[in-house]
């Protein structure tokens, strides 16, 4: 590889901008091309939870822990306030089955040294007096945090631009140029841009973008709807998710009843973000009546103080879903110069800092702090015939209905 390659990144979400930022500060020549506006994809339509507890022990949790370390230092490097606060996180438990499942889960996490503990109802209510008495306990970790995902994305972009990255918005990539099995650049609505390396950070559209280069990648959009309240007095001090989802993973019998889990956070302004749904509906970013209703009722059941709040708006984002819940990071061996950086599903914000750093290292041929082997684009190759990995080319939903249970966030 040449000493100073021109790297082109497709996608101005938190992942694309983080990579651009990490590359640009090292003096690399970077161009970022975004179809609409910065943070117009999932990164501008999500919660900002930087949750460790929800990550599966293993490489996933390791990534999250490394990312968290970097978040603490991040503010100094970015030109806008990103509202990163370690509020501590609660995973609320409502049934005894959930309690049993969470107990095991917490033990596993403690075993690898994560600062997490199981609280009973009284302890939970002490920490968070506004919560419903229906909650019988919670897993608590002081490490869990939140950040403003939009400011984070814009912050990465502005920092990248300050370091001479070229950022083009409202410029969709329509074609990927390939010559002798090597990517040479992209065609955009504003013309052709030549590049040595092309990074696909197109979020939920990464599958679509890969197809432009003739590569199949099992990234699919998974919609999440969110409701936002007006800015009110503080009623929720921690980031909160419900255990239904995690418990279901450990006890398959619960999977049918546990629902999709709920998340809540109160931002610095006082707005409560209530989320979310998990739906395969292609690229539809609409809000549905049952979706909004479900989120609000479930959130209010856990936080009765919500009764005094009003919902002022809703939105929906498309998580970049992959079949095994892990992002796809690194060069595609079948096509020289084509690099994947997408598929963070519900964790893209939390993993953005580490992803940017690892990707920058990998693109510049340095050894990344965490090996990218587990995230390799090739990991799905051997399973290419598995119906669960197939995307319906029309609807962009999984071809097989039996969707494996992913993680929350």
């Amino acid at each position: 590889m040449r000493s100073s390659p021109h790297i082109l990144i497709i996608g101005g979400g938190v992942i694309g901008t983080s990579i651009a930022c990490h590359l640009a500060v090292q003096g690399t020549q970077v161009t970022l091309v975004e179809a609409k506006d910065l943070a117009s994809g999932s990164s501008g339509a999500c919660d900002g939870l930087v949750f460790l507890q929800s990550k599966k022990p293993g490489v996933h949790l390791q990534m999250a822990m490394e990312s968290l370390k970097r978040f603490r230092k991040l503010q100094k490097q970015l030109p806008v306030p990103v509202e990163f606060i370690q509020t501590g996180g609660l995973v609320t438990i409502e049934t005894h089955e959930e309690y049993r499942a969470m107990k095991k889960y917490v033990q596993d996490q403690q075993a690898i040294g994560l600062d997490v503990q199981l609280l009973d109802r009284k302890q939970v209510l002490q920490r968070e007096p506004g919560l419903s008495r229906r909650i019988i306990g919670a897993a608590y970790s002081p490490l869990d945090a939140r950040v403003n995902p939009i400011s984070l994305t814009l912050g990465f972009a502005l920092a990248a631009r300050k370091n001479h990255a070229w950022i083009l918005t409202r410029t969709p990539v329509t074609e990927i140029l390939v010559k002798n099995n090597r990517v040479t650049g992209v065609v955009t609505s504003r013309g052709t841009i030549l590049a040595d390396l092309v990074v696909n950070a197109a979020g939920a559209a990464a599958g679509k973008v890969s197809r432009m280069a003739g590569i199949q990648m099992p990234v699919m959009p998974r919609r999440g709807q969110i409701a936002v309240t007006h800015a009110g007095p503080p009623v929720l001090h921690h980031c909160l998710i419900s255990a239904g989802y995690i418990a279901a993973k450990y006890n398959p019998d619960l999977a049918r009843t546990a629902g999709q889990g709920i998340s809540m956070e109160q931002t610095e302004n006082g707005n409560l973000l209530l989320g979310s749904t998990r739906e395969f509906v292609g690229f539809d970013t609409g809000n549905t009546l049952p979706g909004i209703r479900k989120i609000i009722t479930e959130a209010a059941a856990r936080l009765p103080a919500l009764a005094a709040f009003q919902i002022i708006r809703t939105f929906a984002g498309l998580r970049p879903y992959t079949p095994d819940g892990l992002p796809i990071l690194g060069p595609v061996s079948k096509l020289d110069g084509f690099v994947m950086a997408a598929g963070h599903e519900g964790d893209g914000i939390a993993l953005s800092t580490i992803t940017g750093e690892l990707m920058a290292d990998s693109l510049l041929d340095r050894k990344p702090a965490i090996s990218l082997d587990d995230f390799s684009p090739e990991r799905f190759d051997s399973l290419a015939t598995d119906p669960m990995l197939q995307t319906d080319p029309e609807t962009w939903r999984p071809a097989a209905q039996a969707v494996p249970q992913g993680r929350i966030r």
Partner: protein
Amino acid sequence: MADPYRNTYHVAVIGAGIGGLSAAHTLAGHGFNIVLIDENPHMGGQFLRRPFRPHNSDTGGTASGSRSRLLDRIHQDPMVPAGTWLAEAVTAPGAGVDILHPAQVLGIFPDRRIWIMASPTAGTAAGQDARLMEIKAEILVLATGAREQYLPFKGWTLPGVMSLGAAQILVKSHQVLPGACTAIAGTSPLMMALANDLLKHRGHVAALADSHSMRWKMGQLPFFIRHFPKLIQGACYAARLFRHRIPVLHGHSVQEAQGQERVSGAVFARTGPDGCLLPGTDRFWKVDSLAVGHGFVPNIELPVQAGCRVTYDPALGGWAAAVTVNMETSVNGIYAVGETTGIGGAEQSWIQGKITGMSILEQLGCIHPLQSRWGRFVKTRHQLYHRADECRSYGALLNRVCRVPAAAYGRIPDDTVICRCENITMQTIKQAVQNGFTSWSSIKKATRCGMGRCQARICGPIIQKIIQALTGTEPQIIGPPVSRGPVKNLPVRLLIPSAGNPENPPGQEKGQ
């Protein structure tokens, strides 16, 4: 609970202004189930502002002298009695139109499912006994009208500073003066109308500041020849102002509203040709209320939420629901009528309501195919098309007269609040624009403007004009404000299963 309303209707009309009333009236009496929904405690939308007493006549109040009564009669808008009649006809017990109000439409979902918050007895859609309901309609008519727009100035968030419409509602619907001494400013025909109403009821008007110069206004006069009655109306208003010796400052704008917890004074200054306020020309007026407004913009949040296409045209007042000549929107089964489709006055809403009604009757098979090609139906319809065009041309003129010189928006002082809900200042907006956030969705993300309770209803058009003034970006590129359900604030308590739920107490005990 027994529900007095059905949950399916042939036609649901949203908005009971002249447009909605007219559509409902045309449809009534053909055997269809029709529901007319409005969030306002009073029927008639922004035009019909009748005092509460049912037996009172239209404009309300007794005039102060014989000369004035004559003036009133000359300039009375013929749409007032027409609209009053319409409102009575539609709400009459035998009319066959279910009236659902005050009821707020929160959103329109696939299959024309309407999500509604209604409160049958509490006098407001979100009152004590409020509940959520869903109505399904075969055909939907969106008649959500228009709102005012503004040019922000220092102190415009002070209590006592209000829109011209707010002052007008106080005077005409409630016969309450907006203050003991009121100043009026902006670029709107409502300024003269308001001053006139205040004077009629012995209110004090300190001064009226019109951002347009006398010269500019005179230049517009020839265009009004076609709309002669409006000229007469204007002349009558001016005569009353003159008689009461109310200072009318042409080419002046508000520089500042002063006061602590309430406005106590207004400073007007002369406006330069590029929209800046000329130093040294400021004049102070001691007032306790200040009414401002700079014309109108269509209320498109419901059409946008429902997925209807919108178009931008300054002649329509900005972004407006795109409709065919028969008032169909881009979404199957959804019609739009009145000022939602472009500013054009009460008559336009009336005419469009009739056209909508006829189109729907045709769609529902009430008009014999032969009849819909020949005969009186066609003739009437063509006359209406023609009249609607005339109203549009008046609307275009009106919008031009209200328009503030574009540059004025670029010259708003840095410390002025632009987004009232989120307290975002001009400085923050400018900085974001400099950083390249020049589309509606990106500036919203970069600054939080438009993310508060009003969901950009107030600041949206302003920020669009600021971006336009600072960068020359076309509104089509800046994009229309986005809108999703609920289009207005939805109390969470309405979604909590029941008040008797043992789950509720902990929070509520604490809450109150």
